[in-house]
């Protein structure tokens, strides 16, 4: 399988490890990722909040670049996904308005978790794991951009998605049932209004703790960064690490959770590290 790949800026910066894990697991699953040549900003955040025109022109250029290869486009970042989908919809309706001659590519724009949770991909993963994550009670957290507005994202179940849960289940972890899986992580306010960000993140983490989770997993780099960075130090709530879905997949596939990766977290990912350490010790004990 060959896919066009659109990493976007986060995956070259704060979420560099996300990019690495996406590439690693795709390699393992024999999925060829072809980076869209000369891709540019997806148009999210500053662009689309400043000017609709710019917010559309930027992703349109990316789509036109992808048209040449024609493969489905894999997008790990929820914001990039949302912008590319919006541009794709607009182009399909009226390419002329955007000065594009004809636009009717056969490709789909895929967000990472809905891509990985397809039955055939899940089946392909079976047998690729050298460690399972049994004992990990985890809250699957989606945020907003990969799902809403469903008319843009084409999400089937935008209020109660289950793609991350499906993946976590085959990893042997136990996804908890909880109420805040699509709540706002405060992404766009995190710099301007940290007070609001702390409140919203606090609500999310509280809900995850109440549901019995010891960690969270997400498929959005903004959610990951926000929820880890805006957990208030004043509350006594246990710190809640937020993993990328591909980070967990890679760890389970390789059977290791290296120090280097652990250091990318602002909140200690000890709960995952412990699983690997315990398993290691058991193995040694057995030996």
């Amino acid at each position, binding site marked *: 399988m060959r896919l066009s790949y659109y990493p976007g800026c986060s995956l070259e910066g704060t979420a560099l490890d996300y990019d690495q894990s996406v590439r690693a697991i795709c390699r393992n699953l024999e999925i060829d990722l072809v980076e869209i040549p000369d891709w540019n900003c997806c148009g999210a955040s500053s662009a689309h909040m400043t000017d609709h025109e710019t917010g559309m022109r930027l992703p349109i250029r990316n789509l036109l670049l992808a048209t040449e290869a024609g493969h489905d486009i894999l997008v790990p970042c929820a914001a990039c996904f949302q912008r590319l989908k919006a541009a794709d919809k607009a182009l399909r309706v009226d390419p002329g308005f955007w000065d594009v001659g004809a636009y009717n590519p056969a490709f789909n724009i895929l967000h990472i978790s809905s891509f990985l949770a397809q039955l055939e991909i899940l089946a392909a993963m079976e047998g690729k794991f050298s460690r399972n994550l049994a004992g990990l009670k985890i809250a699957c957290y989606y945020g907003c951009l990969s799902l809403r507005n469903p008319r843009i994202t084409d999400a089937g179940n935008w209020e*109660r998605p289950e793609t991350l849960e499906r993946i976590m289940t085959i990893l042997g972890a136990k996804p*908890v*049932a909880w*109420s*805040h899986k699509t709540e706002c992580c405060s992404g766009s306010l995190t710099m301007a209004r940290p007070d609001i960000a702390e409140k919203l993140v606090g609500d999310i983490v509280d809900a995850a703790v*109440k*549901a*019995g989770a010891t960690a969270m997993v997400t498929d959005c780099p903004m959610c990951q960064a926000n929820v880890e960075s805006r957990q208030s130090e004043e509350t006594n709530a246990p710190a809640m690490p937020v993993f990328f879905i591909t980070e967990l997949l890679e760890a389970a596939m390789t059977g290791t959770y290296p120090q280097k990766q652990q250091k990318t977290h602002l909140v200690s990912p000890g709960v995952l590290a412990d699983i690997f350490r315990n398993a290691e010790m058991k193995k040694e004990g057995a030996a």
Partner: protein
Amino acid sequence: MTGIVQTMSGNNQPPTAAVLVIGGGISGMQSSLDLANAGMKVYLVESSPAIGGKMAQLDKTFPTNDCSMCIVSPKLVEVGRHRNIKLFTHSEVKSLTGDAGRFTATLVRHARYVDVGACTGCGLCEIVCPVTQISHFPAPPAEGEKKTRARGKEKKLISGRQSPQPTRSQKWNFSVDNSLCSMCGGCFKACLHGAVTWEKKQVAVIDQEKCTGCGACFVACPEKFKAITIEQAADLDKSVGAAVHARSQLLKKEYQGKEQGVCIRCGLCVITCDKVMNIGALKMVEDGIEASVDICQVCGACVSICPVNFLEVEQVTNKVPRPLLNSFNEGLNGRKPINIFYPQAVPRVPVIDEASCVQLNTGACGTCASICGVGAIHYDHREEETEIAIGSVIFSPGIEVFDARLRGEFGYGLYKNVVTSIEFERLLSASGPTSGTVARPGDAKHPKKIAWIQCVGSRDHSCDRDYCSSVCCMYATKEAFIAREHDANIEPTIFYIDMRSFGKNFDDYVTRAKDHNVRFVRAMVSRIFEDPLSGDLELRYVDESGVRKSEIFDMVVLSVGIQVPQKTKDLAGKLDLDLDRYGFVVTDCYQPLATSRPGIFVSGAVKGPKDIPETVCEASAAAEAASASLAEARGSLITPEVMPPERQIDPEEGLRIGVLICHCGTNIASVVDVEAVTEYAKTLPGVVYAEHPLYTCSQDSQERMREIIKEHRLNRVVVSACSPTTHEPLFMSTLQQAGLNKYFFDMANIRDQCSWVHPDDPLLATEKSKRLTRMAVANATAGQPLPEQEFAVDARLLVVGGGVSGMTAALEAARQGFGVYLVEREPVLGGQLLHLQRSSDGRKFADFLGDLKEKVLNNERIKVFTSSEVVEQSGFVGSFETEIVMPSGGTRVLKHGAILVATGAEEYRPEIYGLGTLNTVITQSEFETALENRDGNEWQHLRVVMLQCAGSRDPDYLPYCSRVCCNHAVKNARRLKSMYPEARIDVLYRDMRCYGLGEVDYSRARREGINFVRYDPVENPVKIIAEEVGIEITVVDPSVRLPVRFHPDLLVLSTGMKPRDAEELASMLRVPRNKNGFFIEAHAKLRPVDLPSEGLFMAGTAHGPKSSTESISQAQAAVARAATLLSRKSMKMSAVVSVVDPTHCAVCLTCVRACPYGVPFINNEHSAEINPALCQGCGICVAECPAKTIHLGRYDDQNIRAKIESYSAS
């Protein structure tokens, strides 16, 4: 679209006088009864195992708070036993061929596996069935291969917290049959108690002293030898499964209240798994039970028969258990594969579910058939096809509720304490899963704060449910109201958008609910968060002032909308019916019952959301529409009623009284000790038989009553149950069918007047029930057989009022073959419709009216009297005489069998805001007329403000909602906008009550740029200054929370409807009107077009405000109801009438003056006389007569005295 079916041209054969009714809910039942009572043969097809539909699932009904089951069950029974209604339950329509008047339908009766004719509905099969789950059945053996048992590989020990405590209670004795023993030693190895002695090549011997009766040996003995036998266990003669059940029941009783969860090694689970289910996944071991979790079929039998709750389904399998859920209770509790749909079901016959029954899937078990006393269970039933000939079809398959999962933000399906409104109905219901206790499904706690969220799956474009479901505002109010009746600690809150209480007396009901501490919040809840630890729910919403709120509730009820099920859409496709985009059946607004296919008619919520009374009305109307073209063949296919000859009671034979004390589910039995009352009744003088049925009114109980009367040669029957008003006719007709004079009967009301009012004092309530029963027995003892007189019926109908309702009724009655007198006060026919211009789909009313008038005037069966009025009215049902005065001043007496009141209503014209003085202030209908007659462009930039509820819902003017004004305003506003797109329209409203599909037009109006601004007469009143120089209107627009000012060119007032003056007519007919002047129906829910006096019906706006389409439908309904009388040749009248004994009459005229109906007169013999046909049996004259010479059967002095005397006796 041609609704009116033409009689077959070129074919002189009469049509088939039979109708197929699809759907056995309240709609189908009402249609069936009206048809069958008017001489049509009916085939009623219902896909569920029993009739009743959604109404049977409801707890109470608005706006009267009547118990839904109580009012529907007489109808269930009547349909079930009607000789001219052939019931096909658990059946579907496969195909329909032919044309109107002569269709052929193929019906498929699904295999029920229980013989409807033989089954008595005792329910024993359901009790003994051990299966509680949808099994993972082992794959059937490949063809040609012998079935072999799988061997377990994955074993799991279930040990519990304590080692087994073997019991010898209810022990079975096992012994070895020497002739069969193969001396293998299997039993020896299996025994955990050292009770088996065996040596190689020796027959095993069981030491009964050591044996605990666990049956390990029995299970271990190889199937091919069967050398170990059980001696004398209860029900063993039937089957091992039956015996297991019997022993399990005895042990359960013994261990009740004792410590649970410790294995008593009774062995029943192992025996069941091996010998009943033929799986053999369980084994008794020293520390407990060993389960082969891989071969377990997950039927749940081992768990359900365990007397001490030691096992759990999850423990014995490695698969995910799938519990069987009771669909009638909305999945809130479990059921068995063999299941009676609901306790009062008609027919009360179970169905075996093929998906979960072990016998049907693997051939094992078969316990139910072994236990059935009448041999009604047949596992070899197959689906059957039947062809029937019919003339018309009524399509009334009903609706389902919206799948609340599609509104994920409310967490339905994930949060346990979020339920749907229909689930909440079941939680409220006395026969529901919690027996009427309001408990949270998550933890069975009693919730305090409960929220209702309105418009879940209604008025919602996001999930393609743009329409309003019409019933939710009212049912939510009712549920909140009733929840507080169940538990006064409950604090209900209803979150709503518009309060659409548009029906008759609905606003009063909402006000009452508010007085009963039901809180209403105008807000749409955006999200629910569950606290997973407490199960409590946090609701987020924005209140009216724009502030974001968060509030915690214990439980949330989603007021789910109604929708057409996919199955129904498919069936409609098969029948070739046009549906709209939501799946509702498309009809024409002038022919509201006719579908796109001639000969097929539609009724109920499948043609648009509606409540019960509207459905009942439409059902009658559909019955009328479906039978009109078949009228010439009326009566050709029915079986006339034949009552057995009445048994003459020999005065010598003495009293033989039978007494039935009803449980009424738990309505009575949860308070009153019915068994004690029954035992007490047996001791009363003359009582030879007494019993206590679960529901005395159910069909099987009624059949049983007939049998008991015959078997015990009863000559009196007493029922202690509910209200005689609702149920006495049913019981009396059962007496007649058993050959007993129906007046040898009495009822004691131990529910409404005892268990319902004394729930806190069961002991005294039981004593009171005994006393009430004793009094009824005494009364029955004094009972006399009364003869009923028969008289001829005049098959003509008098219609009073010549508006659209009256004319439609006249025309339809004529098509039914009845003569009609149509009396109209005005010089022309047409009524209020003359003042309106266009129908909801834009056609001119004038064309429709002209056509209708012509048909009425040219119909030779209809005699029209315009400018005429009723001045005198006498007679009785079947034989009325009405005097009318004609324009000439002359009078004329009309003779007829029934009366239909259609006196109508008119637009209200209050003197407010300059209406009547300023030409810039007009009413909606004036605006509609002006719009119609407009030409040119001077309205191009017209500024219009429409004020809704102008003089409506206002205690100083019309206190009620007129139902039609919101739709009327939307219609006119859209028309103006379509003619003059630049015109500006602002509609000031309180609640936009665009119910049903009207909502679609309302949302279109908003999209088309018509502004809607909400006001409130108290919180946010509209200030209007209307003068010659101009109009200024100020109001705060809640959407921007700022005052806005309008200077319209026109102020259009939606003033509502007021009934036309019918006071004299009402008093002549002796029928009541409500405080607003609308006629009161006989029963708000189930008799919406009947007036309280027999033979009198009503239609149209005389009943309450409604649209022209609704009036047409109601007119047809009233004709259907009248046809049930007019189609009879003769009628019997009640024998409970006053009779004067002339010997003591002093001709004092007391009775003449006292009678409210003016019946007594002084005859030529110089004595008072009472015409039995006119007497209403009220008894006033009897009480007043100074000479005590008037007698009233059943209520004579001897009866009353007997009752009073028995009251004080003990």
